[in-house]
């Protein structure tokens, strides 16, 4: 065996690790300037009707416990630093799901004096869930897509250049 090709036990451990990550997703919810529409839909996703606990998804309060950061809304100038800080507080491996049209492009808030832009201009985003607001089914589907990407070993996104700093103050 050469040093580069993984040993059998390494493959097995990798499989178990991926399986555990797929089946236990703890999320933390961050509102970076949303109108609250998407937040209500996220809360609806957690209600008994949709019951995401059957997929192993749980909402946690502390970013230190979380695997997935669910961001809603455009990133306002005030929320930008907090968003970065929350992201940095999460332990690796971490994933970001951006929910709603505003978090993808700025939506109706695009060009506002206090809005810096979309979420992926600040932190790397794994899954985009469009909609204004997206239905709970769409949010669950987005998370399932994140799981599928994880399983296929899709390359992670890289941080894009920060344009928020270039906006006139």
């Amino acid at each position, binding site marked *: 065996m050469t040093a580069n090709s993984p040993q059998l036990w390494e493959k097995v451990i990798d499989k*178990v*690790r991926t*399986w*555990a*990550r797929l*089946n*236990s997703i703890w999320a933390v919810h961050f509102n970076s300037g949303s109108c609250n529409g998407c937040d209500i839909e996220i809360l609806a996703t957690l209600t*008994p009707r949709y*019951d995401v*606990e*059957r997929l*192993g998804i749980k909402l*946690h*309060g*502390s970013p*230190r*416990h979380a*695997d997935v950061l669910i961001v809603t809304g455009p990133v306002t100038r005030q929320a930008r630093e907090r968003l970065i800080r929350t992201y940095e*507080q999460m*332990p*690796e*491996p971490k994933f970001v799901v951006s929910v709603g049209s505003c978090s993808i492009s700025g939506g109706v808030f695009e060009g506002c004096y206090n809005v810096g832009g979309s979420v992926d201009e600040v932190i790397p985003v794994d899954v985009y869930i469009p909609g204004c607001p997206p239905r709970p089914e769409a949010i669950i589907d987005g998370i399932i897509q994140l799981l599928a990407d994880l399983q296929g070993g899709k390359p992670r996104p890289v941080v894009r250049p920060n344009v928020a700093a270039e906006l006139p103050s």
Partner: protein
Amino acid sequence: MNTLASFFTILIYPAGLTLILFGMFYEWIDRKLVARFQNRAGPRWFQPFADAVKLLAKEQIQPGIVNPYLFFALPIVAIAGASTAALYVPLMGFTPPSSFSGDLIVTLYLLSLPTMCVGLAGWNTSSRFSLIGATRALTQLFAYEAPFMLALLGPALVAGSWQIGEINEYAQTRWLILSQPIGFIVALIGLMGKLELPPFDAPEAETEIVAGALTEYSGRGLMMFKIGKSIELVVGLTLVSAFYLGGLSGIGSFLLKSVALLFLMSVMQTLFTRFRIDQTVGLWWRFGAILVLAQIVVIILWKGYMP
């Protein structure tokens, strides 16, 4: 040979692997029952195991301000305390692997070790949420510890022994829940307080203080605290069902009685909303402690007059 046997005792049965797996199994039963009461499908059977493996594989962030030795030692002490307590209880209905006169007191102290570790961990990480959580956890410890201890004292007084194994044998001849119903209720609710289950989850109330004392813990440390709590759940259920529900004589009676107790606890978790910390303390000292004390006085008088 003796070393091998002790290694087996510590790593496989009754401490170690068996205990961890049992703890996860019981945690799943609890979560599933609560989910069913809320009209949900609930988690799948391997959920606690997947959670534990995932947390093990995650990064452990050490906040800059903490004392690193304490930060890494506390989860280990918590899990060790809970597993050591398992050595003295009739787990799965077998005779306890280790036993001496007065092991009831030692077990109770070992069982409160995880809570003290959580309190210290909250103080050590010194985030504002973990500090409030730690204060609440320790306040709650002072509230439920004495009534819980008094509630387990009743069977010990009746059996005339401080040895858990002997009390278990005595309890097999009669169901002490019939003669000491107050003690049973206080012990059951005390166990819920010990495990910080919903009516008494003010120390980790996630709607107010993020995640309580464990806010800054991630990865391995968090997983060890969680597993320590699951082990505490199994040991506590074993203790209460051995003392009050007619003793544990085998695996069948162990599973039946402890799961019945767990069912009762899940019902109460679903029924009640969270108490404020002052309500918790008031409940224990105004009602729990006094009722149990009255019962103990009655037991002592009864034993004195009718030997």
